[in-house]
């Protein structure tokens, strides 16, 4: 049986079990279809855990996120749930961020601190987002159980954002804010996309809601729109700067991923929204805790080897 599924990856320069990678893509795709997140935050650590060189894992995961976000972005676009003006500003910021990110990536790699930096960023962001989400979901669920209408949060953007100059009107999002705010959000997410191989939806969606105060209806679609373009740019940057995009690995992940995403989207329609968000919050926290353990427990191997590829 083994000989049918072993596949040699030309860029990662190792043999993998194709079914395991497709299964991994399907699992991540299922979750991303269910929760509307790209799932890069799961793919990259899982690939590294499987033994794929980290640089190849990050680059190929960005390619996979492009593929999984495109069909979502397209269906939101058809329903008119993308703020193209806001999206363009976010993408412009994202492009700047991804170029900055690729320099940062190389600098950290030369210092030998790339792995620990990635892990710390993951723990901080996933830990914060997971905790906030869990708190909000629990409050909503409690309110629902006691029969009250859930408290509506006023859609006001953050006071820091209100202080920025260069205000512009974004009618679809229903905001009148400084163009710098979405540009900076996009840039920050772009840095993360290149360094960690994630789309950054788990940071961008809360940032759009609570920092920019955008209308909830366009948040997910616009986020997917930005992710689609920025992960595509990240793929190009990785391909030209370090030749670390493994197209075969990306195809395997996508084969499972796109199928899983369809199933996930269908499963999502059967579950109440609060339950879904609770699961997502717990999942995000679990990944954060697992990575925090990896950072603090004494590693089995103190030494590591860095060659041109790793």
């Amino acid at each position: 049986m083994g000989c049918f599924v072993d596949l040699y990856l030309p860029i990662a320069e190792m043999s993998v079990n194709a079914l395991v990678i497709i299964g991994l893509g399907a699992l991540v795709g299922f979750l991303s279809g269910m929760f509307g997140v790209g799932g890069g935050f799961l793919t990259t650590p899982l690939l590294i855990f499987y033994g794929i060189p980290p640089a190849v894992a990050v680059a190929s995961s960005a390619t996979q996120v492009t593929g999984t976000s495109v069909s979502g972005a397209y269906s939101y676009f058809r329903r008119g749930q993308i703020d193209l003006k806001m999206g363009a500003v976010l993408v412009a910021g994202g492009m700047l961020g991804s170029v900055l990110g690729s320099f940062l990536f190389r600098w950290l790699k030369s210092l030998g601190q790339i792995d620990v930096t990635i892990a710390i960023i993951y723990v901080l962001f996933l830990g914060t987002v997971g905790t906030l989400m869990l708190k909000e979901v629990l409050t909503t669920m409690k309110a629902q159980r006691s029969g009250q209408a859930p408290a509506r949060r006023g859609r006001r953007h953050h006071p820091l954002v209100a202080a920025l100059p260069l205000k512009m009107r974004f009618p679809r999002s229903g905001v009148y804010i400084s163009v710098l705010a979405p540009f900076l959000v996009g840039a920050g997410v772009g840095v993360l996309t290149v360094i960690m191989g994630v789309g950054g939806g788990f940071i961008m969606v809360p940032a759009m809601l609570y920092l920019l105060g955008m209308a909830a209806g366009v948040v997910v679609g616009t986020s997917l729109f930005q992710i689609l373009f920025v992960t595509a740019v990240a793929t190009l940057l990785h391909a030209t700067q370090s030749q670390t995009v493994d197209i075969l690995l990306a195809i395997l992940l996508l084969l499972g991923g796109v199928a899983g995403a369809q199933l996930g989207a269908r499963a999502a329609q059967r579950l109440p929204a609060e339950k879904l968000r609770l699961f997502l919050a717990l999942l995000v926290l679990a990944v954060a805790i697992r990575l925090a353990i990896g950072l603090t427990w004494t590693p089995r191997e103190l030494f590591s080897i860095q060659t041109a590829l790793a």
Partner: protein
Amino acid sequence: MRVLLALLMLLAGAAAAAQQPRLVTDLSQSRIDISYRFAGAELLIFGAIQYPGGVVPEEPPGIAVVLRGPVEPVTVRKKARIAGIWVNTQALRFESAPGFYAVATTKPVTDLLDERNAAIYEIGLNHLQLSPATAAGPETTGRFQQGMVKLRVNEGLFVEQPYGVQVTDRILYRARIPIPSAVPVGNYQAEIYLIDGGRVRARSTSPVIIDKTGFERSIFVFAQDHSFFYGLFAVTLAVAMGLLAGRIGRRG
């Protein structure tokens, strides 16, 4: 007169050379192709010992078989705990670490060879010359070198088989070298040593090429030589797959 003397010395030299045993070697394959189905391989290195005058000695011969991959510079890092988090703190650069190194011997290297010969011919994982390029004490360098060797052994990229060479009738020898799927591509060299009294008596070498072939090679070359179009192709493919799946999903 002087010419005659030189000629005599030459002849004596040739006679002495004839007194030395010779090694004849062959490989199961001199080229290992990495195709999309490649999941590791095994290289059989075999041959015969030609003794001077065909006289086979009483003692079983000592043989060491080495397969050496291309060398490259590597940085070895060591973690230490800073504020509760494990961070890479120390780094040591080695200029010439082989990407693959396997040694098979008739008995453990320390019983077979003296220190000097083992070091000269780099036989045994403890005798690799990695050319440390970072100034550090010999003790630190040694610890880093051991750490690196241990990692590569775990990955199957460094192999030591103390009884890996089989000798038949004190003439024929053979060794099987396992090659993992993560093996680096490049020009390899198989080296066979005949050892007696702790010293190398005869040596033979054969080149081995490990390279990607067919589809794997095309992809690799595409990614290296036309990296922008490769990236563009990857993006296009991802977008196409995503859209196709979306369409199928809507219909279903």
